[in-house]
């Protein structure tokens, strides 16, 4: 589903990704862990196509398409969802308006029928309930005045509504209390655990992986994948730390 090959990327002339290769087939949840500054968020932004992140070498193939050739909104329409570590506030634009425009833009690009107001509202309420987010928050402006935890839940409600085929979730667990973490983890399972979908889950902590059980775990360090293993690799990291685990690699 997603095939990253020898990816090099830089910001302001500084190389961050340095020959990263990774394949995530459909049906897989692949966790990415790594020390601070390893390039985890950069990987997420490069996949999302954020301006300022320059790919200097390598390729990313997404369902047979050259992902790097697509504009950010085209990547979304192709089924890619980027869960932000710091969801952005957009004063003056309500969640409902934003998400309906977003969903219908994607559907239009895919040649699917557009959802009318009633159909959309029903879908939005259903997904808000799944993430235990007060549906009234959907009427509020995008992320404005939301707590850290609410922003992350709202992010997953967005994912539920947009129903992507591939999700890149950048530290979706940061800022969540224990209960919220479980709700969000179960939300990820409910929305993304399917044979035709896949997830790249960037996280620092084992706790989320207790809920969203990954099929594979990779360590990203200095801009490349240095080790890949099963779920036990995350447990070893939690117990021994990066230095010890990577030294034994």
């Amino acid at each position, binding site marked *: 589903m997603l095939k990253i090959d020898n990816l090099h990327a830089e910001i302001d002339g500084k190389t961050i990704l340095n020959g990263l290769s990774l394949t995530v087939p459909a049906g897989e949840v692949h966790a990415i862990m790594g020390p601070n500054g390893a390039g985890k968020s950069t990987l997420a932004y490069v996949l*999302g*196509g*954020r*301006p300022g992140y320059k790919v200097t070498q390598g390729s990313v193939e997404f369902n047979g398409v050259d992902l790097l050739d697509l*504009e*950010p*909104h085209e*990547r*979304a*329409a192709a089924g890619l*969802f*980027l869960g*932000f570590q710091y*969801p*952005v*506030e*957009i*004063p*003056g*634009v309500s969640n409902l*308006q*934003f*998400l309906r*425009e*977003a*969903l219908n*833009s*994607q559907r239009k*690009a895919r040649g699917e029928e557009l959802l009318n107001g009633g159909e959309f509202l029903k879908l939005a309420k259903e997904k808000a309930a799944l993430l235990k987010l007060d549906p009234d928050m959907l009427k509020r*402006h995008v992320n404005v005045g939301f707590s850290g935890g609410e922003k992350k839940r709202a992010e997953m409600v*967005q994912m539920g509504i*947009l129903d992507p085929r591939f999700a890149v979730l950048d530290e979706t667990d940061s800022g969540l209390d224990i209960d919220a973490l479980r709700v969000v983890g179960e939300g990820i399972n409910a929305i993304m655990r399917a044979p035709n979908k896949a997830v790249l889950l960037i996280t620092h902590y084992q706790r989320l992986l207790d809920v969203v059980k990954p099929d594979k775990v990779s360590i990203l360090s200095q801009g490349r994948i240095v080790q890949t293993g099963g779920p036990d690799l995350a447990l070893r990291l939690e117990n021994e730390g990066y230095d010890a685990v990577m030294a034994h690699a």
Partner: protein
Amino acid sequence: MPEAAELPTRREEAWRYSAVDRLQGTALDDWRVIDIAAGETFRETLVIADGGGTKPTELHRWRVTVGESATCELFAVLASAEYARLEVEVTLRKGAHFELGGITVGGRDTVREFVTRTVHAEPEATSNQTVRSVHWGHGTGNFLGNIDVLRDAQMTDAAQDFKGLLLEKGASVNAVPQLEIFADDVKCAHGASVGQLDETARFYMAARGLSPDLARRLLVQAFLGDALVALDDEEKREALMKVALDKVDKYL
């Protein structure tokens, strides 16, 4: 019709950022007088849009007296003409309220501006002015707002709020709040800021599937929305917003 010598110059504060050369042949002394009786509510909208007989220079000068406990609400969108100006001189009697919601949008080398002089002549009057300007090319948007609080006008509550959004290098906005306060128990707030479209928000919206054009339209709509918040007629509000957004869309 005034002689050339009578035309204002940019040395005068109220015409400082104006396209004064475009005033030639315009009746400067043609003030529209609006008297609002005590307790009445008066609402007026002004739309300067493309087509519909819009002249190259659109000068609108209104002199308003708002009677005791009366309300005057003005909402205006200046989206066409080489030079468009709405100038309002408003005098507030006891407990009166003045509301202005203004939008300027424009590119090329157009100038669109609001110039207000709000006189709080008696106690307990309130005024609230919100102007939003979106410009590109070499377009200019201005808001010059004088607030005079006279000696007897205790318990005045006046507010002015201006924000400019520049879509391109070369466009400009000017905000000049001027407060003259001679009473001692008053509240006068004013704020002004200028910026450009939030790139982070644009990327966030793109990451959810919105095209750059649609993302921009939503952001501009959100930005302009503040100016029309006080307009409680939804149909009118949407019509005014559409004039402004269509203008921005036409350019971009």
